[in-house]
């Protein structure tokens, strides 16, 4: 045997492809269907129009493209509402059948992780009440918040493995006149955005090739019940989640890498509300400053309520301390909508964000003064009583 006979696998030629038969964790869906056969619970199937994406250990996950029941986020709708509005706008642009429910509570997990003033039965009952509400109107839950997504995956895992919890929750649901029903897949909206990326790119009207972005993947998306997050061998060699990055690259955006990508945003649940010194410091020093020093991006893009809030709002105090800040923060849904020509103020509602984003918009060719005047004209009509609300038609005018 000569030296040349020894196969040498160069690092750049090595392609990791996860093998589902070697997954270190069982497929929870098989256990769910088994429990359904035993009459323990009901499983809500993903509706017909779906796309399959690959998860961390190489299994496939069905992502429904329509008939979706939008489990909204209290933090998004409350404080950064253009985040949610952009998700709905995208659905409307593609003419997809979706449901924006009023029979929905938040997952209440922000409070649970912050204060522990709840318990597993209450948390599971809140989740199942929402799932049952979706099933009752014939739509499939799609979760807007990263924490709701992670928490619901944990709830599903607990319901499968804890018979006593199932018994308690079933009893509560009986009293509410509802079924103990669990979705076949727990789906995050950014998975839907990724599944739709080719269609979004086909309708792209704004060139984004001059933009460099950094990406912050949400902890509760890819660290909680990690086997359910989307990975792709073409994105980071399947060593990190493909969420956001896959979408941005499809839109022509250059995604820059930075050393603290795995760090959380600093949200901390209780910290962002009552110990914000931690959130501010961590967010600025471990995320924003590192991104600027190592990449100097035009924008940072993330996919969760807490991440957008913390990374964006913390920069004000950072500026006061002379830190390297001033990096606009947006969600992937806002970037996707912007790429398709959505109005930055009427749809993306960027005036609710803190860090100045005008330079970013102007680099993309937007006339921010004109666009802000258009939004102000809508506000004037509301103030003058000419209209009560701005409609979707107004937003697209």
């Amino acid at each position: 045997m000569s030296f040349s006979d020894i196969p040498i696998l160069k690092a750049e030629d090595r392609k990791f492809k996860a093998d589902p038969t070697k997954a270190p964790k069982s497929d929870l869906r098989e256990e769910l269907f088994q429990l359904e056969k035993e009459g323990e619970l009901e499983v809500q199937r993903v509706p017909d129009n779906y796309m399959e994406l690959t998860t961390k250990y190489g299994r496939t996950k069905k992502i429904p493209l329509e008939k979706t029941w939008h489990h909204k986020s209290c933090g998004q709708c409350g404080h950064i509402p253009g985040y949610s509005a952009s998700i709905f706008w995208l659905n409307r642009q593609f003419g997809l059948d979706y449901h924006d429910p009023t029979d929905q509570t938040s997952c209440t997990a922000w409070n649970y992780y912050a204060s522990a003033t709840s318990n597993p039965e209450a948390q599971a009952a809140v989740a199942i009440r929402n799932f049952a509400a979706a099933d009752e109107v014939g739509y499939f839950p799609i979760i807007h918040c990263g924490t709701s997504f992670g928490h619901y995956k944990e709830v599903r895992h607990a319901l499968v493995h804890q018979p006593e919890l199932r018994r308690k929750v079933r009893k509560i649901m009986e009293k509410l006149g509802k079924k103990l029903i669990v979705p076949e897949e727990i789906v995050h909206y950014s998975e839907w955005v990724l599944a739709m990326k080719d269609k979004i790119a086909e309708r792209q009207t704004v060139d984004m090739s001059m933009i460099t972005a950094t990406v912050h993947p949400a902890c509760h998306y890819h660290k909680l019940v990690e086997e359910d997050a989307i990975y792709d061998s073409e994105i980071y060699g399947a060593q990190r989640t493909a969420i956001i990055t896959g979408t941005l690259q499809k839109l022509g955006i250059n995604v820059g890498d930075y050393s603290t990508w795995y760090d959380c945003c600093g949200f901390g649940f209780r910290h962002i509300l009552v110990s914000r010194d931690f959130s501010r410091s961590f967010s600025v020093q471990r995320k924003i400053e590192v991104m600027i020093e190592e990449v100097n991006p035009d924008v940072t893009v993330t996919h969760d309520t807490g991440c957008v809030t913390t990374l964006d709002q913390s920069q004000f105090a950072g500026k006061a301390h002379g830190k390297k800040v001033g990096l606009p923060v947006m969600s992937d849904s806002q970037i996707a909508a912007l790429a398709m020509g959505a109005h930055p103020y009427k749809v993306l509602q960027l005036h609710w964000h803190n860090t100045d984003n005008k330079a970013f918009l102007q680099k993309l060719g937007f006339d921010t003064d004109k666009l802000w005047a258009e939004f102000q004209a809508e506000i004037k009509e509301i103030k003058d009583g000419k209209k009560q609300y701005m409609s979707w038609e107004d937003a697209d005018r």
Partner: protein
Amino acid sequence: MMALDLSQNKHSDVSMDEKDRLFDEVKSDERWEHVLYGCYECGICVAACPSARFYDFSPRLIAQAVAREDTDLIYTLMSDSIWDCSQCFSCDRCPRQNSPGQIITIMREVAVKNGLGTAKEALAGYGRIIYKIMLTGTQVSPDMLQPDAFPDWGTHVYEIADNLDDWRRALPPETLHTTETSWVIDDKTIIELYLIWHMTGVMDLIAGVDEGLYDIIVDVMEERLEEAGYDDVTFD
């Protein structure tokens, strides 16, 4: 950074029996067998932990203490450190599949359930959030964006507060034309949420950590439940 007092003097007034009882309660949680498998002392959890960078806090210390069943130290941690955790679960990187974050979730629940003084301290100032989530079903709402609540978020919060009503009306989704909740929520939905809090013992947890808050929440709930025909619901 405040140093964590690990001397065993701070809580010497609490009996070992009580400390053992609390740890037994932690171990009796159904999740317990899935959160601790042993510890290599590799420190990966600490390296990944955001709170460890800014507080005298260590997920490894917590995993080690519970693995050794050092109830004295566990009580100290339960009275202090656990509230520093960010609950991001970055520590789930553990090569032994431990989840220090989940251990802390359970410890926090036991601390709240038993009305530990430190749990009350940790939750001081948090009452308005509990009030909001329990009564409205959304954790935060647009009208919470007030300069006195978020002074470090800058002048931008003044602008939102000043324009709140008009800006909410200028949101295209019809469900978002709200200021007191993040979206429109049906009365029926709220009633079902109240029944869940009642049936799962969450009301008792609140009474244990903040009696005044409990009284306020019960007043509002009783009225709405009565209106919905639930006259016989009691919160005792």
